[in-house]
């Protein structure tokens, strides 16, 4: 197993995937860019990240487990406790065997296909729909954007490709684990979603159960194009194991009267840096971010959102909820930018942080750049300690201290959790309890 990154490795990856020349070239350019760009010195501390020690490419024979039986009992147990369906458990553990979901979701895939909806892995997308991919790939997040985007472009593998034709409204959420991958490559996932005019789609990735990973660096890139009048919601539940650096670039281009919603829950990882963005380029475009971050012992979650207003009458809303406990640190870092001379722009930011104990930490770094005199920008930030009065109130009704605290925390997260698909909301609530108390029972 070779460590570190090299031209040979990138060439090998591209060759194994049998890619078109333009993609191979793009990967090589991105590699050069990666090598010349500085490591970010803002946000979370990345100075301990040993770039040369990382396995950038896990060949199929080097995957952590080849069967469900090899998955550590601890991982299985948590999945059971949180109530993750069996089919999903295997996927999350990185077992590459075929699974039940083929049968379960077969009919869904069929009905999507009838409407002309494409939902496949990015690798399949590039192979089967090369023109669409070539047209949009790297347009929203070019490799020169940041060091991690360059790394992802050089080494991407897996991720989803979603194309929704004009006017098609996809009723059920598209869930990433529906995809049958011949390989699991969560390390440098690349996702591209195109919603044509007047269409709508809800994409869901991740799961609330801890996702075991043998790779210590994950750098995904997500690009979303929301055409006029279309609506996209992108829901993430991230719960990587506590050894993972999770450095993600997510960005959407939102056109005239279109709507983009990011729902982002960050529970796991060692370090997370993630600031999903909306480029509001068309008049009347709306961007939204609802996020949850929970930081426990040794974790630093540095997350937020960017709303870039580039057209008249655009609006955005950011609601960020964070919990710091057991010595964890969560930071909100967000940006609202309004281009000069725009009219009718509205933006609202609400940061709500809950600190559970004396050893935990929460910070807020808002950055508003407003070049328009008429823009209405609201910013509210709240930092609160877990209320002893509320705890006492609930205890007087018969709940133990622990039950009371779990209930208060769930209540605090409720505005965002209410936006999740039902099964995820249930899992997330169980997980919050598991993180706070060590059991779900």
């Amino acid at each position, binding site marked *: 197993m070779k460590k570190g990154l090299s031209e040979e490795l990138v060439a090998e990856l591209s060759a194994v995937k049998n890619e078109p020349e333009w993609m191979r070239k793009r990967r090589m350019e991105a590699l050069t860019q990666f090598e010349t760009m500085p490591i970010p010195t803002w946000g979370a501390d990345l100075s301990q990240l040993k770039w040369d020690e990382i396995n950038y490419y896990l060949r199929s024979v080097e995957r952590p487990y080849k069967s469900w039986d090899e998955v550590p009992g601890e991982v299985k147990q948590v999945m059971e406790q949180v109530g993750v369906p069996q089919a999903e458990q295997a996927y999350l553990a990185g077992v590459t065997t075929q699974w039940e979901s083929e049968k379960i979701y077969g009919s869904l895939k069929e009905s999507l296909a009838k409407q002309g909806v494409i939902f496949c892995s990015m690798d399949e997308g590039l192979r089967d729909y090369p023109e669409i991919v070539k047209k949009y790939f790297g347009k929203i997040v070019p490799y020169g954007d940041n060091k991690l985007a360059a790394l992802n472009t050089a080494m991407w593998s897996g991720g989803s490709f979603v194309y929704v034709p004009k006017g098609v409204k996809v009723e059920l959420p598209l869930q990433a684990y529906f995809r049958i991958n011949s390989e699991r490559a969560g390390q440098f996932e690349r996702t591209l979603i195109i919603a044509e005019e007047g269409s709508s789609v809800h994409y869901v990735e991740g799961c609330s159960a801890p996702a075991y990973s043998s790779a210590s660096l994950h750098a995904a890139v997500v690009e979303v194009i929301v055409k006029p009048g279309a609506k996209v919601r992108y829901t993430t539940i991230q719960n990587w194991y506590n050894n993972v650096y999770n450095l993600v670039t997510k960005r959407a281009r939102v056109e005239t009267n279109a709507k983009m919603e990011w729902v982002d829950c960050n529970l796991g990882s060692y370090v997370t840096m993630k600031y999903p963005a909306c480029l509001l380029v068309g008049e009347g475009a709306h961007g939204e971010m609802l996020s949850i971050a929970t930081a426990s012992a040794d974790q630093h979650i540095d997350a937020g959102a960017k709303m870039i207003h580039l057209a008249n009458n655009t609006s955005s809303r950011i609601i960020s909820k964070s919990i710091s406990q057991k010595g964890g640190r969560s930071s909100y870092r967000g940006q609202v930018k309004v281009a000069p001379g725009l009219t009718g722009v509205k933006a609202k930011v609400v940061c709500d942080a809950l600190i559970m104990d004396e050893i935990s930490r929460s910070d807020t770094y808002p950055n508003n750049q407003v070049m328009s005199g008429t823009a209405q920008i609201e910013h509210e930030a709240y930092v609160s300690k877990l*209320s002893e*009065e*509320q705890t*006492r*109130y*609930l*205890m*007087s*009704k*018969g*709940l*133990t*201290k622990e*039950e*009371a605290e779990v*209930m*208060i925390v*769930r*209540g*605090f*997260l*409720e*505005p965002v959790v209410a936006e999740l698909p039902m099964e995820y909301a249930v899992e997330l609530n169980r997980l919050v309890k598991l993180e706070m108390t060590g059991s779900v029972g």
Partner: protein
Amino acid sequence: MKILTIKNLVVSVGEKRIIGGINWEVEQNTIIGLTGKNGSGKTTLAQVLMGNEQLQIEKGQVTFEGKDLLTMSADERAKAGIYVSWQQPMAVPGVSIFSLAKAMLMARGEKINNLVEFRENLEELLTKIGLPKEYAKRSVNEGMSGGERKRLELMWALLSPPILLILDEIDSGLDEEGRKRVGQIVWELRKQGVTIIVISHYREFLHDLGIKQIMVMDKGKIK
């Protein structure tokens, strides 16, 4: 039979002594009024019985149904059958009345087999205390008026009737209709065998409730 026995109870908040040696016995199956001026220690006494750990118990003993109450946590007391309504009930954002009702019953070891039936029962109780049944979905006390919060405090007692009910200024903030309704419910619980202590500034309210035995608290003592 005595349900509650308080012996030589002395309680302080910070430097200040609020209760200065109470001796009091409460008979089972009775309803007692407790009145007194502001600052006489009525609420402190209620909070001591509830298990507010911020209060410093300097001396004394409290026995409830033969159990040493002062060694029990607030939730243990609630589960043992003491319910103290709050004078200023706390808002708990994001926690619905429905969820808390469910958690309260589960904490008492009750199984809820049919959630639809449970919701209907809860809605019935809400209607009974004069709150819209849609409140089941609302966050506990959040955005509710003082009077509505007081009604809700009583609803929790109806949901799981205690052995000893202590109503701390349930009448403040309530309109006339609300006070009447409280009266009806108090007597309904009384008929079920619940022992009740009603704390109020207003003797009239206690009289209107038909309470015969009224105690007065003054400067931290009961007369």
